[in-house]
């Protein structure tokens, strides 16, 4: 085990996989002069490349190169910018394997930063994971701590499909224990961060920490909460979530994306459909209000779902 930050863990995974496989290369915005200088020093300019600010081209570079057998890692900076490359993600990367009847496939990793909280306003703060989870052919993964930042990032690079890896920009400096040697974690296996018997708190990304904080408050009220990080929206660990909901009978889903149309609705629908018999109350959801991310600190802090709101929703089920 080594102690490293969340951002260092992502880089450690990239370095690990670039050493493992000469077909892995990294390209994107601000790659060599900012995020991954150490990679340039080790792997050289052929495999570590800055691109122009050309989002469509960056994703398409990945599509074309992956179709030919390379394993691109594409650095897209803020998730909000994925709008500039939506055709390439939605109509090219996600569908090519299918449209070509499996003649080739696209082992490519798309990295982008999600989340609010850095006073960056409406175009640099969004959590748009539900949009991408709606697209068959794409996998969507969220990193919530240094350990899974390394493990899931490594897995994304090894995966044979296009994977959107979402780092949360508020977690970059978070330090924690990370396996030092070669390490990857599977997708589609929800992580039980705290076992409990009274209520299941389901979340991903930064919101798992607010759920963990909520458990302390809930404990004071005599409520023993279980916390689940779903880790990947696609593939989604339905079995793991249902098992926890069956145990506790109560569910609160918390995410930073707008509640309206959020992935929490999909999870709630699945639990309602397949787990109705063991529910002891309504499935509750908390997400951001249906507004663009505001700038003013007063507004932004109110926008992001809080620990207090999670506590209140969970306690309201009793």
């Amino acid at each position, binding site marked *: 085990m080594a102690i490293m930050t969340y951002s260092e863990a992502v880089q450690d995974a990239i370095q690990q996989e670039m050493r493992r496989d000469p077909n892995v290369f990294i390209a994107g915005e601000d790659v060599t002069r900012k995020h991954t200088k150490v990679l340039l020093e080790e792997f050289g300019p052929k495999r570590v490349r800055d691109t122009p600010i050309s989002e469509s081209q960056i994703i398409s570079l990945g599509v074309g190169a992956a*179709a030919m057998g*390379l394993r691109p890692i594409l650095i897209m900076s803020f998730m909000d910018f994925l709008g500039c490359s939506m055709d*390439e993600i939605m109509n*090219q990367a996600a569908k090519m394997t299918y449209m070509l*009847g499996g003649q*080739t496939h696209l082992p490519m990793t798309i990295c982008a930063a999600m989340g609010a909280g850095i006073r960056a306003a409406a175009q640099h703060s969004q959590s748009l994971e539900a949009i991408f989870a709606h697209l068959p052919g794409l996998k969507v993964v969220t990193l919530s701590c240094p350990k899974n930042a390394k493990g899931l990032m490594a897995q994304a690079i090894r995966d*044979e499909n296009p994977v959107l890896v979402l780092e949360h920009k508020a977690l970059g400096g978070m330090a924690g224990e990370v396996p030092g040697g070669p390490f990857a974690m599977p997708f589609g296996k929800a992580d039980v961060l705290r076992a409990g018997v009274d209520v299941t708190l389901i979340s991903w990304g930064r919101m798992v920490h607010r759920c963990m904080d909520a458990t302390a408050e809930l404990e004071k009220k005599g409520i023993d909460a279980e916390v689940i990080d779903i880790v990947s929206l696609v593939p989604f660990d339905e079995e793991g979530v249902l098992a926890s909901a069956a145990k506790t009978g109560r569910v609160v889903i918390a995410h930073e994306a707008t509640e309206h149309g959020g992935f929490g609705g999909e999870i709630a629908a699945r639990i309602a459909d397949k787990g109705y018999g063991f529910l002891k109350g309504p499935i509750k959801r908390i997400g951001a209000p249906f507004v663009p991310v505001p700038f003013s600190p007063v507004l932004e802090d109110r926008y992001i779902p809080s620990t207090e709101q999670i506590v209140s929703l969970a306690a309201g089920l009793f």
Partner: protein
Amino acid sequence: MGLTKELTKDEYLSLYETMVKIRVFDETAAAYADSGELCGFVHPYSGEEAIAAGVCGELTKDDCVCSTHRGHGHIIAKGGDVNKMWAELYGKATGYSQGKSGSMHIADISIGIIGANGIVGAGLPIANGVAFALDYQGKDAVCVAFFGDGATNRGTFHEALNLASVWNLPVLFVCENNGFASTTPRAEAMNVARVSERAASYGMTGVTVDGNDPLAVKEAVRAARLRLREGGGQTLLECITWRHHQHFIGDRSDYKDPEDQARWLSEEMDPIPRFEKRILEAGIADERELAEIRERVDAEIIAAVRYGKESPYPAPESMYDFVYAD
């Protein structure tokens, strides 16, 4: 022109056969789409055959192409299997994509056809990715991006030409300027007379050729490859042509000037009779030899259509195959 003298009889006849094969393939597809025998969109390549034949005639098996919605010609010229193509048009299990692609997404990775594309302008930046991989893997090969004049108004055209130039990628941009973006005339969509003028923005060479002359196209591709090899950078090759049909079969809108249409379809302008005349006048082959080629192609396409029609449909549960790779 130097090339005219250099080409062997076989090369002439090979170009001719490719053009005829594309024409027969797409005229049959057009008729079948019109009658309802084929479903979905069919965008015939008829009238533009000299470009696919001329470009792909200069490519090796290692070279790659990224095609378009009007892509049958590129696939045939690159060596695609017309049986698998027809089966795909019919949505059959024996098609190139087992019935998942239809007309607009045909690919054959084994011979460097990275895929036709239903999104205008999507192929150019993908071609850069392919070219990057060819270079990364140390192959002496290029990737050709085919696209229409309409695609040059998309942002992807700009992003792709720019990156190809600054990264010095082994890519060739081939614009098939058929005068219309769907139904919109070129002059309403851009304020430069020639697409090739746009090359200057990227520090690359822009060339315009007669896209209905396979030898002019071939020679321009040869020069572009040489330029690339000698460090002279990429080429935006504009081939002036005309599509005989509307945008797709079933598009009944009336936007072409009948006089222009008649002129481009005349024996003097249509690339196939034009090339025939040239072959006959130069004494490269006689009418009987050309007729034999046409008969062979007819038989091949008839067999391909039958293969497609008689092939089984995919099993319903195959819908779930290939969403993800294992």
